[in-house]
């Protein structure tokens, strides 16, 4: 997406983020998958 905490940490950069959805967390990042 752009530089935020992820870049600051030298970590993954978010490319898609369905944060407000009520259903299961379903956002993926460029390099990693967020798993719950």
């Amino acid at each position, binding site marked *: 997406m752009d530089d935020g905490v992820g870049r600051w940490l*030298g*970590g993954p950069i978010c490319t898609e983020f369905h944060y407000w959805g009520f259903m299961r967390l379903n956002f993926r990042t460029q390099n*990693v998958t967020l*798993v*719950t």
Partner: protein
Amino acid sequence: MIRHIFTAFERSFRFIALIWWIYIIDFLICAVFGVQYSLNYFGLAPRTAQGLFGIVTMPFLHGNFLHIIENSMSLFVVLVPLYLELSDRFRMPEVIIKITVVSGSLLWFMGRGDSIHIGASALVYGLIVYACIAGFKYKRLSLLAFGAAAIFFSGGGLLMGIIPSDPQVSWDGHLMGAIAGAIVIFSERNLNDDRCSTRYPEPN
């Protein structure tokens, strides 16, 4: 007895409230600054330097409302019976910290790469296994019954949670949580001594 139940509810709520406060803060951060600043970046990313944060932060980070509701209910359902049954023998903060650190460390070393693990479900698994083994160790049939009921009423979902299935489910986190729960209860000194002879504390 009523006081004991009240204490169990209060202590469980306190911990769950802490998780909710962090979720609300994260929610506000995302609303104001954008989702790229989400605290979820501080989750546990195995074998990465920044992922080390996650050993401590993972149980406090949740992805959405349903996720935190599920984990809050699970935590409440497992923490209250543990405290009711084991009373002061169950040192809630200590057990929570131990399971969190042990499961997080195991997950950091052995978890799936290319992923950020968040959520308190590893802790929930740890506490359920802790409760089951504590039932054997301290001869509390009700805790064994609780473990069996948890598996039964989840429709086997608890067991399914520790085998690879959905790529977005942290099954390895669940597994490490369960292992951590076993390690923590086995490492506890068996307190069948005078201090534990009183099942419920006397009212003041």
